[in-house]
């Protein structure tokens, strides 16, 4: 299989314009004859479903949540990037493009990233027009802040609830289309298989989570906007339900999976407190703008942090990276924190934490100033830990946060299965080996509002769609096998609950395939997963029935897929004998512990083909070339 990324000809500034001109259009009167299934209602899915319906297509939208507004996008805090240059501080499309390619450690496609930077300004306009209550300055114009290591202020935000407000904007646009009858929305439906007929994606089967019924949905194209797979680690900042089932089942039907080992760890999360911990909570990265990160110079120093004089503190990021200081990219900040803890400088009861200190910011600007900017985060910290961060420093530790990997897509956001499009965090596209802060919201909405409406039209206009009914054998067979799987879960009647297995899998992944990886560890992962899977099929217990609302069945299906995905993730991590972005192989580092890429051997997208449970996946490569941003060793010194 050769991977054709379909990157348009021409200078990078003109590629998207040229491409839009060359794409075939669907005649307006014909649009209503096409039927598009959009799975997922997060930023990517809701914006896509609404925009496609506005154009006149028939859209079926579904999600496993009870309402589109519950999608995980709602939880994003910090903000969304756009190079509007409202601050007159030197920002431009080019700079955002440059920062994103560099931040991604030269493992993203230049053409995609440039397009993303180009459309990002329109996103802000669109959201403002929808009534999204962005933060404003006293003159009434939009406020910006600098975020996640950017040296310009290009991040738009809505207090600490940017994701919520953007999602509600997209949700309301979707509601408007539901009201107009152009979108039919189905809540509490979980896609469990993709239907591919004569090489084209033509529908899905989904489980009705309330009745347990397996339902067919027919379409001319299928759009997956089903989010990331961070929960393969069990503990992550993702919402509890986030999972990989939709993309994994599409992968099993032939869609290649791109760069599964590119996972992101976020440096500022509240540390694990107990064995019952169910998820981790992110504290917005904006805290690093004013908080200073440190550990005691003396290992295993148990003093109250306030008793440790300045001279005995190691502000290690400021020391190692004088120009970026506490604002180094996420992967760098995370790794340094881990290193400090590994060397015995960790703090708090578990010694797996570092301090994030606001004493100086409070002294410089007053407590009120800090409260106005970060009050909700301080409240959240207090709620969860019972501690007051105005008085003593916060304790933070890195946690799994985002997955850059996902289904491989071409420039049109189409997977290797014709008619299957993948948007948002679910695809592998624009962030390379590391995503910059405030860029996921941008990508999700860019994909949904401004890219898919054009590219899907070209596919529809240039393909043929033989009539199809839901009694086609492809549907009945898929429905049967999905039902068999759910019945099998219930019939095992073992001793260990689903969460028990998931927690064990997550621990293996975090310990051996998390922030730092090495060949031995990865080989261990590849040995333990098949054993765990075998035990799972013998000893899992899934109580309750299949024809009723039953969260245990939902979880079982997702965890079963996580086993397989974990194997692929480790395989990919083992094969990539270099360090880049979020993928850090201990064997490949520079003398001062920075990631050492190997551009000669690994300047490609690894796209994996599924060959069956326990079978070796086959690697396909999409070579990357960098014409505009010349690869250099990332340096934040």
């Amino acid at each position, binding site marked *: 299989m050769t991977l054709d990324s379909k990157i348009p000809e021409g200078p990078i500034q003109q590629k998207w314009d040229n491409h839009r001109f060359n794409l075939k259009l669907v005649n307006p009167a014909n649009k209503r004859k096409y039927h598009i299934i959009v799975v997922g209602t997060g930023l990517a899915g809701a914006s896509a479903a609404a925009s496609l319906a506005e154009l006149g297509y028939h859209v079926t939208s579904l999600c496993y949540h009870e309402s589109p*507004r519950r999608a995980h996008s709602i939880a994003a805090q910090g903000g969304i990037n756009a190079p509007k240059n409202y601050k007159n501080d030197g920002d431009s499309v080019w700079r955002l493009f440059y920062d994103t390619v560099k931040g991604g450690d030269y493992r993203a496609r230049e053409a995609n990233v440039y397009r993303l930077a180009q459309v990002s300004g329109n996103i802000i306009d*669109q959201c403002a027009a929808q009534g999204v*209550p962005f933060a404003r300055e006293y003159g*009434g114009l939009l406020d910006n802040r600098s975020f996640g290591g950017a040296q310009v202020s290009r991040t738009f935000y809505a207090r600490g609830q940017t*994701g919520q407000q953007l999602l509600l904007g997209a949700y309301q646009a979707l509601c408007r289309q539901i009201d107009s009858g152009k979108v039919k929305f189905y809540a509490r439906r979980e896609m469990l298989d993709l239907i591919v007929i004569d090489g084209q994606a033509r529908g899905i089967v989904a489980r009705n989570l309330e009745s347990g019924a397996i339902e067919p949905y027919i379409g001319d194209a299928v759009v997956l906007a089903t989010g990331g797979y961070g929960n393969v680690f069990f503990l992550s900042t993702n919402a509890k339900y986030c999972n990989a089932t939709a993309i994994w089942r599409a992968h099993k039907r032939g869609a290649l999976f791109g760069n599964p080992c590119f996972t992101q760890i976020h440096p500022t999360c509240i540390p694990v407190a107990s064995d019952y911990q*169910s998820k981790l909570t992110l504290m917005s990265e904006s805290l690093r703008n004013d908080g200073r990160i440190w550990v005691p110079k003396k290992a295993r120093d148990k003093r109250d942090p306030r008793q440790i004089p300045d001279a005995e503190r190691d502000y290690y990021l400021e020391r190692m990276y004088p120009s970026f200081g506490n604002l180094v990219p996420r992967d760098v900040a995370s790794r340094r924190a881990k290193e400090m803890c590994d060397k015995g400088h960790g703090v708090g009861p578990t010694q797996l934490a570092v301090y994030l200190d606001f004493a100086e910011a409070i002294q410089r600007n007053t407590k009120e100033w800090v409260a106005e900017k970060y009050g909700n985060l301080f409240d959240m910290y207090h709620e969860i830990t019972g501690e007051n961060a105005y008085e003593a420093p916060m304790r933070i530790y890195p946690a799994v946060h985002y997955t850059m990997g996902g289904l491989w897509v071409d420039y049109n956001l189409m997977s290797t299965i014709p008619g299957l499009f993948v948007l948002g965090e679910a695809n592998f596209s624009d962030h390379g080996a590391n995503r910059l802060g405030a860029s996921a919201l941008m990508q999700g909405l860019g994909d949904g509002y401004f890219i898919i409406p054009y590219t899907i039209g070209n596919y529809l206009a240039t393909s043929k769609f033989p009539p199809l009914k839901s009694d086609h054998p492809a549907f009945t067979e898929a429905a049967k096998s999905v039902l068999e799987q759910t019945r099998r879960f219930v019939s095992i009647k073992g001793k260990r609950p689903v969460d028990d297995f998931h927690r064990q899998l997550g621990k293996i992944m975090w310990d051996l395939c998390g922030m730092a990886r090495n060949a031995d560890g990865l080989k261990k992962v590849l040995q333990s997963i098949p054993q765990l899977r075998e035990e799972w099929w013998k000893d899992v217990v899934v109580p309750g029935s299949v024809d009723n609302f039953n969260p245990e069945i939902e979880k079982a299906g997702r965890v079963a897929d996580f086993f397989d995905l974990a194997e692929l993730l480790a395989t990919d991590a083992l094969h990539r004998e270099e360090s880049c972005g979020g993928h850090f192989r201990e064997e490949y580092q520079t003398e001062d512990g920075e990631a050492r890429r190997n551009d000669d051997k690994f300047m490609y997208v690894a796209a994996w083909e599924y060959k069956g449970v326990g079978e070796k996946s086959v690697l396909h490569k999409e070579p990357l070339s960098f014409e505009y941003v010349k690869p250099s060793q990332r340096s934040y010194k």
Partner: protein
Amino acid sequence: MQFTLKVWRQHDRQAEGKFVEYKATDITPDMSFLEMLDAVNLDLARNGEETIAFDHDCREGICGSCGMYINGRAHGPLRGVATCQLYMRSFKDGNTIVLEPWRAKAFPVIKDLVVDRSAFDRIIQAGGYVSVDTGGVPDANTIPVPKPIAEEAFDAAACIGCGACVAACKNSSAMLFVAAKVSQLALLPQGQPEQKARVERMIAQMDEEEFGGCSNTYACEAECPKEISVSHIARLNREFLKARLK
């Protein structure tokens, strides 16, 4: 810590429900309330018994999924937090905790503590939006919005759609939820052109869903995890009157 739980168990929409008692043992004060339920569910699952169904997802108080009566109070004893933001340190060791789903005609029980809140979606579908298509909008800075107005609009927009206001109200009124959206869009210039139709249609839909009327008891504000102010209800009433008079 340990607790006795009395939990509402109901197999499906049609079934009759009843309270069932469970023991929650080995609980620590820094476990969240939902982690305590996870622990009880793990025990149930180990014994092959059906686990307690409850809605949840983000566990950060933002998605609006979680929500139940805890000892007769929507989202439990604390002000300004959702169920998922409660920690066991707020409960007294050895106590009995009673768990029930939201009780409102417009929110039928699906199972145990899970209810159907799709009525809220239908209210938003009836006009809780600004009618702009994708593309063709002006630059975001073309229309300035004074900061205090933007802040007030944000306060309203912070609603997470959890339904506690309905559950807390003796009339099962959805006024606070509806007012939050009407008020947000009434405050912003972008919402102006459709204001009249919006408020009328949303109120009509609210009535159709069989939510009750508002009798100004303010129980909603007291239990709202986002502390949405009843002043938004006053704005809604003004907008509704204005729409009627026009």
